[in-house]
């Protein structure tokens, strides 16, 4: 890829389109939009080379608000459209923006395949555990018992874990952040952008109208420190207001447990060090949930493939087309058995 230095340092404003943002006041999407614009400005990417592709849902309005190329498509299919776009033009820097219904319900199949193919793009899943645009029905990530217009007695479906699903699909980059973490999110987005392959980022996003507070158990200011763990490659998995809690492998089992450093003879040496290339560890980290465990955020898994899907798909030498290619077509039509009459 050609590295072109932009003429001047870009600001978030350079990525802001002239369209009025139409999310509900207080929606977590605003914070994510702000973070993404800031990240792109800091990365210094070229607006002309950047494409936002979305499906349907509140999150899917995202492309309209970015001063880049954007394609607002149909429900669930953004990964398929983005894949075709990337095949056609591998130079483009593609971000897919999706929600939990869009990518895990109607579009679950496409998310599976874009991740296993490892198409080089960033996939942002705004998870608010509810259908917002259609006015509040429960979603595939809604907790069991969610009361909604379509489940007045409480939902009975078992929710899917987005990050566990991504790992199960063979995703090589799985990260998480939270809408309100304006310092944390850009660091995660930058890592996602840097990763060659499909980068899956789940962003816990609060829907203030239909599912307000669904993540309070780990996002509320008074519990956040004890119920979140920001994992960093090569650093011990510690958390808590006093940074004295940590994760270790429970002796005699293949599972994690939370321990307190300084209690029961536990020292820093007992605490697991995060290895973002360890898929088994990642699988255990994404399954954690309060009250027994903190929720893992940050880059949970990153293990890039050696070769790119699109590079393998495209020819080594570009084909000739147009007038130059006419003789090729004549040759194609004459391959195999032919005979002359007259």
């Amino acid at each position, binding site marked *: 890829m050609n590295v072109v230095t932009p003429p001047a340092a870009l600001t978030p404003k350079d990525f802001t*389109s002239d369209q009025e943002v139409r999310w509900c006041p207080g929606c977590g999407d605003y914070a994510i939009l702000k973070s993404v614009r800031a990240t792109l400005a800091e990365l210094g990417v070229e607006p*002309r080379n950047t494409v936002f592709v979305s499906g349907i849902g509140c999150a899917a309005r995202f492309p309209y608000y970015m001063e880049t190329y954007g*394609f*607002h498509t149909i429900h669930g299919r953004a990964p398929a*459209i983005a894949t*075709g776009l990337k*095949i056609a*033009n591998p130079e483009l820097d593609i971000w897919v923006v999706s929600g939990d219904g869009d990518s895990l319900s109607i579009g679950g199949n496409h998310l599976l395949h874009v991740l296993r193919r490892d198409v080089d793009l960033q996939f942002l899943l705004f998870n608010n555990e509810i259908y917002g645009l259609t006015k509040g029905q429960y979603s595939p990530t809604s907790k069991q018992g969610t009361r909604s217009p379509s489940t007045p007695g409480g939902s009975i479906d078992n929710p899917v874990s987005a990050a566990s699903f991504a790992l199960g699909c063979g995703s090589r980059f799985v990260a998480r952040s939270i809408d309100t973490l304006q310092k944390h999110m850009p660091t995660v987005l930058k890592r996602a952008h840097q990763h060659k392959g499909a980068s899956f980022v789940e962003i816990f996003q609060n829907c203030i109208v239909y599912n307000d507070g669904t993540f309070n158990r780990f996002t509320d200011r008074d519990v956040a420190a004890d119920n979140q763990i920001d994992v960093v490659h090569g650093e011990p998995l510690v958390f808590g207001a006093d940074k004295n809690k940590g994760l270790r492998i429970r002796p005699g089992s293949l599972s994690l447990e939370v321990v307190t450093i300084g209690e029961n003879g536990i020292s820093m040496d007992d605490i697991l060090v995060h290895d973002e290339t360890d898929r088994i560890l990642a699988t255990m980290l994404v399954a954690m949930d309060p009250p027994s465990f903190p929720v893992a955020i940050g880059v949970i898994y990153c293990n890039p493939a050696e070769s790119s899907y699109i590079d393998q*798909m495209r020819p080594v030498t570009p084909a000739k087309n147009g007038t130059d290619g006419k003789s*090729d077509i004549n040759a194609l039509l004459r391959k195999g058995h032919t005979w002359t009459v007259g």
Partner: protein
Amino acid sequence: MAVTAEEFEEEASRSVLESVVIRFAGDSGDGMQLTGNQFTLATALAGNDLATFPDFPAEIRAPIGTTFGVSAFQINFGTGGISTSGDTLDVLVAMNPAALKVNVADVHVGGLIIVDTGSFSQRNLDKAGYDANPLSDGSLEKFKVLEVDMSRLTRESVKDLGISAKEALRCKNMWALGLIYWMYGRKRKPTVDWLTTKFRKLPTIAEANIAALNAGHAFGETAEMPAEVTAYTIPPANIAPGLYRTVTGAESIAWGLTAGAHLANLEMVFCSYPITPASSVLHNLANMKQYGVLTFQAEDEIAAACSAIGASYGGSLGVTSSSGPGVALKTEAVGLAISVELPLVVVNSQRAGPSTGLPTKTEQSDLYQAVYGRNADSPVAVLACRSPGDCFDTAIEAVRLATKYMTPVILLTDGYLANASEPWRIPDFDSYTPFPAKFREDPEGFHPYLRDPETLGRVWVKPGTPGLEHRVGGIEKSYDSGHISYDAPNHQKMTDVRAAKIAGIANDIPLQTTEQGEETGRIAVVGWGSTFGPISRAVSNLRAEGESISHIHLRHICPFARNLGDLLKGFDKILVPEMNNGQLVTILRSEFLVPAEGLNKVTGQPFKIAEIEDAIRARLEN
């Protein structure tokens, strides 16, 4: 045993025939399709005109010996004027009792049936559902029957090669082919070459197949044949000079799309999901990177359509291909392509339905789906291919319209065309006029829904172009800015302009002409798609009797050629033969208020010439 076939010019007298219809029939594992394809090649090289009809079961390996596991390949070849694979059989080669049972009804009285008696065991007779052996119960009296123990003769021909009994028996189809080659004076060398290449890693198997082929041929030359079985010669057809090859519809579509992309100066991204009978188009394109073709086997039909749209959004030619049920799944995506006005070619290789229907049997019943089958007011261009060779030019036309008008184009072919082959005069591609796609690069006065005042096609912008960053989507947009617009009069205007754009294509396509006959008369027989062959022969037969009949065949169905209504009104009666329950006929009636009548058939088999002749005659009499 020599591995090469010696071709000799035999002096034995051969009776001259104008044309012959042969059907090879056997178990789905007997290699009947390979046998038929080899005979087709040999016949094409002999300079005959020909048309083929491969007919095989949906099951890959149905239980051996059963009637539903019978696979057949029919070829009609002759000195000229071959337009269909033939109404009735002159020769049936039946490799087992089930093949005889399924196909005997199509042999005309006095026709020749060649059976492998080695397969007529009690067990196989039972499996085929025969109470008595048809070879001895007199039921075949009205036919000529040549009973040969092909199984035994094949085993004997390969006995020195040290292969297993099972491997030996697998050469039986080549033995039968050798006999038929003798009967019609076909050269064995192309088949010998093909076998040598196909089994280059298994030279003994190649040798065995060649030995069987030669043995079947030698049997014809030397055996004491019944008087009615003789050798024939079919003089070469008097066809236009040029370089020829055989081509199936699936090959021709694949090459036509590739050629169209070249003329448009675009890379093609062909996105598909496997489905019978459309998969062969994907297979034909899967190894054509050097011609600017990328293929993507998507996770489902929807993803195939969507990835093609993504590719078109990126500035390539996005193409997706399927059969009716798959096209149904693509419908919402086609609506998106209509709304965002991007080129998209959707190839539909139609099959019998609804639902899974008869996957390997042909039908033309997706015309309504192509023309009307979407939510909302969502017009697209619809084209239909008439013959294997015609698929090439119709596919090029689909690419031309899709890129010039920024619209989805549905290209209709069918299971018969996909698999059938015919001799094709290879065009000189240098004589085709390029239609290079134009991409907007100028930011001055740009918005994404700027239109060409003549075609009404919107501007096409490749993401990556500086200064033209913009957003498109499925929400209605302002005619004047391309921004999201919920404004009611604007929606009316956009709906109107989308309709006008497709309707305007009528000014960019040839006027409708007749294939045969005058532009006025007693009866117009109007067809589309693969009914071309039988309609054209039926009309020419009746015209030879002096009847006032014309044949009109439509390539452009949406929109129609702008003179079609006037043309139809010049006839007393309009007959529309279709392999569906009456779809084009309804569209013609609603569009032009003409008293068109349908002739409809959905048996999974193409029309016979006689069926169309009879229908025309009935209308001439009234």
